[in-house]
């Protein structure tokens, strides 16, 4: 099947209650925020969300186009992530104690992992593996409750692979066959999520005719891409608006004084 070009709402409607959904989130860089907004408007419930970072934005930034994952909370029963934000100490005064309330009341389950383990669990899922033995996090919270094994005198932790039902991906450009290229460090874990997930929905800034992308530079081949969604140019999640948000971000990060 070649990629189906459709609206975000139509693509998101393939997500069923209870599905495992994987997505990349790294501030506003490589995060499929346009799809987040469509998922937030959908009726899907009880999702397990595999998300690279869960980073709530400072108050007011969601309205400016920041892909704030808290908009998905009403649809999610469990979050698996290496980085659960909400209590930044220091540089950015983010607080979101409602996350703590959700966790304490048992309404939201969480599982912690590391960035390297997270992407390798996806990679293992993509390769059809059940899991792997990892040396990362021995003796820490990451090892809690997991099988361990000594290999050549070193201790390893068993890490289960991840094979999500649906992947939500962001790429810069696609051709009509679904071949994807990314921009800068927005590539992140998008390619491995695409390889691991059974169905992929991809948002892009631009869709071009086959042949317009240099085949040497295609990162994710179209075979992985099921649904292609073009972000409307003037949308709050669009490149133009994010450029403005980036300026806001620089001021917010308070890099003043850095020469």
């Amino acid at each position, binding site marked *: 099947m070649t990629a189906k070009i459709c609206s975000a709402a139509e693509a998101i409607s393939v997500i069923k209650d209870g599905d495992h959904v994987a997505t990349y989130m790294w501030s506003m860089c490589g995060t499929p925020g346009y799809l987040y907004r469509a998922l937030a408007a959908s009726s899907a419930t009880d999702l397990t969300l595999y998300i690279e970072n869960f980073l709530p934005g400072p108050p007011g930034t969601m309205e400016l186009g920041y892909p704030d994952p808290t908009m998905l909370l009403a649809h999610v029963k469990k979050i698996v992530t290496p980085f659960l934000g909400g209590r930044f100490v220091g540089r950015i005064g983010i607080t979101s104690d409602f996350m703590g309330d959700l966790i304490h009341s048992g309404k939201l389950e969480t599982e912690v992992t590391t960035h390297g383990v997270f992407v390798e669990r996806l990679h293992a899922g993509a390769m059809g593996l059940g899991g792997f033995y990892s040396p990362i996090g021995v003796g*820490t919270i990451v090892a809690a409750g997991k099988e361990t094994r000594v290999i050549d005198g070193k201790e390893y932790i068993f890490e289960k692979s991840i094979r999500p039902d649906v992947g939500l991906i962001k790429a810069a450009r696609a051709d009509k066959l679904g071949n994807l290229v990314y921009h800068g460090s927005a590539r992140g874990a998008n390619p*491995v999520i695409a390889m691991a997930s059974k169905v992929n929905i991809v948002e892009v800034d631009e869709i071009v005719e086959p042949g317009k992308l240099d085949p040497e530079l295609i990162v994710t081949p179209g075979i992985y891409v099921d649904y292609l969604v073009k972000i409307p140019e003037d949308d709050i999640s669009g490149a133009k608006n994010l450029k403005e948000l980036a300026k806001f971000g620089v001021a917010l990060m308070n890099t003043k004084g850095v020469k």
Partner: protein
Amino acid sequence: MKERLDETVMAMRAARELKPGDYCNLGIGLPQMCASYVPDGAYVQAENGVIGYGPLVTTDNVDEADVGLIDAGGQFYTPAPGMSFFDMVTSFAMIRSGRLISILGGLQVSENGDLAIHSTSEADEYPQVGGSMDLAWGAKRVIVAMTHSTKDGKPKLVKKLTYPLTAAKCVDLIVTDVAVIEVTSGGLVLKEFAPGWTVDEIKSLTEARLSVAADVKVMEL
């Protein structure tokens, strides 16, 4: 109270550890700032998939901020010749390869080089592990850049960690706002102290046993 080094100066001092030919991952927080002070011929890596990037964008060149050029902690960086992008499977294979130096932040470091960075209590709802465990395990040299004391004045260089362990016996050097300290098989060794400070003053802020290098000197800024 005596003046401590600010974050910019700490980042400059930590970045000075890098030599031409070095590749170094920069962690979240203060280490991100090191990108602006890397010596010629050394290259920095961000875990989300870039190596060889340039100085951070500041409010002076905000128009250069590109939403695709963000480092590990969400700061915007400028592109540099020879920079390359890759996905995060490649990035973490690189991080675990032993080819990178790592500059990390820290909450506590113990006498034997154990590191706590991801949370302050086992009961923490938001353990923020990120890539710290991968970096601490995989880097060929781990430099921790952090303040010497907590905001309420408690020592962060401790005999044994009281915060949850991130990685055991991984730290090689600690750059604080008053000192540079090496982690050796014999414990922590004071190598440098900030201008205006004395060895005894540094010791009084340090819970861990701290020996003093024969060639201890004032930090050159």
